[in-house]
């Protein structure tokens, strides 16, 4: 039992999310381990993005969203009354579906986070370090003062990853980071993720099952439960396991149907 020795970064215990009075995700029990890539997969509307966004309290920005159950971060209740969401997001970074660089220079994009946190040290070195870690330094070192919107989509997304790691977080959450990118940019980002997991814990939501199979150590499969009455669509976690097991020999038939392309 190698897993037992692994450090649990997040432990979701009977976790649920409501938007207003409608239940979006119910009874999720999921461990997420340190220095691994965990993929959340499943059909549209299964709540995988909702679960991801509750891991850095991004759902707080939607006034009607309410998280139930427990989300433990290194054993600490992330939704406890003494927890500051701003502090949470300093240690748990996020990369979004569509690249969202700030309309500023490449340099300022990276420097924004460290300046926000008041990080000590030479800013030029911090920027260079983050860009190197995101394998972007050679592409942009001669045009750091240029606007980030002049970059290609793939470069913009790597810039967003560089921006996230510049603040030296503990975890990086990725919400379908490659869905707006071409295959070559996608492979570059996947390479980068494999590199980054040495230093960070990564949770990725993806629609692309091949991507989950390629990069993830563990995979959690979500689906939509429509059995709870007329019109109700509640996301549920079907199972989670090592990626190889999910894709070759899942314990639930719904997972097998999904990963073999029978539905979804």
């Amino acid at each position: 039992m190698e897993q037992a020795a692994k450090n649990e970064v997040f432990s979701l215990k009977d976790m649920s999310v409501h938007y207003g009075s409608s239940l979006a995700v119910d009874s999720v029990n999921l461990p997420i381990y340190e220095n691994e890539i965990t993929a959340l997969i499943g059909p549209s509307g299964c709540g995988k993005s909702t679960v991801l966004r509750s891991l850095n309290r991004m759902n707080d920005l939607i006034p009607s969203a309410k998280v139930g159950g427990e989300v433990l971060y290194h054993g600490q209740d992330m939704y406890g009354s003494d927890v500051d969401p701003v502090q949470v997001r300093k240690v748990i970074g996020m990369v979004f579906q569509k690249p969202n660089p700030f309309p500023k220079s490449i340099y300022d994009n990276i420097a924004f986070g460290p300046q926000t946190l008041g990080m000590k040290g030479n800013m030029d070195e911090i920027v260079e370090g983050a860009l190197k870690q995101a394998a972007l330094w050679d592409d942009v070192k001669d045009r750091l003062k240029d606007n980030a919107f002049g970059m290609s989509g793939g470069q913009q997304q790597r810039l967003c990853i560089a921006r996230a790691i510049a603040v030296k977080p503990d975890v990086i959450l990725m919400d379908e980071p490659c869905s707006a990118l071409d295959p070559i940019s996608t492979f570059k980002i996947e390479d980068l993720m494999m590199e980054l997991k040495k230093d960070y814990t990564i949770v990725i939501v993806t629609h692309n099952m091949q991507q989950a199979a390629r990069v993830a150590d563990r995979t959690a499969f979500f689906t939509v439960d429509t059995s709870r009455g007329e019109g109700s669509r509640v996301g549920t976690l079907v199972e989670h396991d090592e990626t190889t097991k999910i894709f070759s020999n899942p314990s639930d038939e719904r997972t097998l149907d999904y990963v073999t392309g029978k539905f979804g």
Partner: protein
Amino acid sequence: MSSSIQGARSRSEKNSLRAPSPRIGEKIVISLLFLASAISVGVTIAIVISLFAPLPGFFDYVSPWEFLTGTLWAPSFLDSSFGVLPLVAGTLQVVFYALLIGVPLGLGAAIYLSEYASTRVRKTIKPILEVLEGLPTVATGLFAVFWFKPLIQELTPWLEWTSPFSIGVAGITVGIIIIPLIASVSDDAMRSVPVALREGAYALGASKMRVAVKVVLPAAISGIVASFVLGASRAIGETMVVLLVAGGGSPQLKIGFTEPAGAMTAFIASRATGEIATGTIDYYSIFAVGSLLFVMTLTMNMIAIFFVSKFREVYD
């Protein structure tokens, strides 16, 4: 019923690509719509022409240099003098005090509404702001004369309140008038900044204040500057409040919070009554001041357009 009509149509009729009717109604509507837009453009051009047309008559009496640099405005004195600077100074003081009040309060309100207020608070405050925008300024002017000026006078006993009129109070009153305008336009500009940009900043551990000031504000700067320019234009053009609160002013160039002062608009409004005889220097002077007012507003708008295109953070 309709199927029988369909059936009665011959094959050649069915395949025809010609319009079944000349659609005269649509053509009439299009011409009316064109007429509506042409009238507004035409009237604007006519106003500008009528403003500039009497200028040669004025400059027969007074040299442009004397007009633009003279510091004594005394059109009705026996020994008349047409230096426009006292009026320009009055107008600029109004703009200065108005922006001093209107920009921080308007922008503050916009930041609150766009970044902090709950939907319910926003839905209450925004319509109130829009109603305030439409308040007749003569009413605001009366309020300023009878309540606001005495209040300021009481609060600032160290100032020398020798005159019943004050250009400073007039400016502040105009500032209050432009708060809703600046707040409403800036709020719209800030709310049109994509949510994705805010999320990007929040995900880096930025506080609300930092997201508002460092991300949303720079991204919305073009709209925000536009709101300041609109506010300044409104301040330049404001007539009633200045007339009521700052008085007709003195012919000399004077700068000071408690001084009475005439502004360009107030001068025009007090002079351009039906009794004025065309072709007199009095008549011409009104158009000279009006033209200068127009040029000032135009210049300011152009500077603003330049500023906006230079410092805008494009996010699309």
